[in-house]
């Protein structure tokens, strides 16, 4: 086990436990302030979008809007599937199938 990876895992474990335990330890009967709720509500959308966009638009490190960008093409199909089916399994399966097809046939 590399010590750098172990440090990452332990740090992640501590950060995760903190977010799960902090409110149980701090708040007993009072709630979270409204402004905090409003902010936290949008964190999942923000983090997902900020992970997805560079993965699809900058696969090689620079902006690529060309049809050779398989990640962008497969990403568009995947987004439509997600919208139509609302199924995580179907979305990943079809997305990967499109990606394999693009790789194999070199469209």
């Amino acid at each position, binding site marked *: 086990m590399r010590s750098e990876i172990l440090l990452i895992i332990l740090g992640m474990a501590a950060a995760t436990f903190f977010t799960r335990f902090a409110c149980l330890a701090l708040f007993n009967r009072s709630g979270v302030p409204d402004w905090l709720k409003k902010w936290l509500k949008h964190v999942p959308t923000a983090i997902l979008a900020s992970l997805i966009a560079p993965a699809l638009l900058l696969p090689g490190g620079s902006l690529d809007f060309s049809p050779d960008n398989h990640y962008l093409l497969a990403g568009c199909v995947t987004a439509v599937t997600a919208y139509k089916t609302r199924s995580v399994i179907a979305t990943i399966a079809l997305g990967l199938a499109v*990606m394999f097809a693009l790789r194999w046939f070199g469209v």
Partner: protein
Amino acid sequence: MSTARTVSNLNIEAVPEFRAGVRDSLPVIVGIVPFGLACGIMGVTVGLTPLETVLMSALVFAGAAQFAAITMLGVGPVGWGMIVLTTLLINLRHLLMGASLAPYMSRLPVSVKALLAFGMVDETYALTMDRVRQKGYDAGYQLGSNLSFYVVWVTSTAAGAHLGERIANPLAWGLDFAMPAMFLALLVPRLTDRTGVTVCAIAAVVAVLGALYLPGKWYIIIACLAASVAGGLLEGKNDAQ
């Protein structure tokens, strides 16, 4: 004394409730198996050993954060502080869940609170709150649900890591696309109103600009903060109208 009594009460009286927690979790658990498998495969794909991959699932037990960390490790060398900060941001939503459960758990000893907090993920939280809605809070029920999800998450990660080792060159197959595909499947259903779409657009633009012009992985944190704060402000404005 009171701690010991509460714990022994948990042992004796909580068994049927523990079983109910396990039983109610089973249908939902099927849904996390593919994620566990994907997590194991991706961990090995970006160069973690199977042991490191499984240890991450066993100690962190947070799917979204683990996928983000694995993505960051896959793109290149990255400092541990950056990954821990991203984990913290992704898991901030747990603060809200903890806050809503806190009133029901206020009488439990700190050690039991800590144990139950470790196992609080999106699904077990939802099941526990549903039980609160129907019959009231029960720690045994929550433990049953937490433990079922934990065991399945760790075993399916191990199975995925085992599979991943058998695929010669996962990147040539485009297997790394599994990550953005899964994130898209989670993101799209969240875009139900204008604020959600705006938050998504701001995050995407800031992340792409940041990835182009900022060092390291700062773009994830900066884009997430900018977009979520903007979302909070937009929401406040709508409420006032």
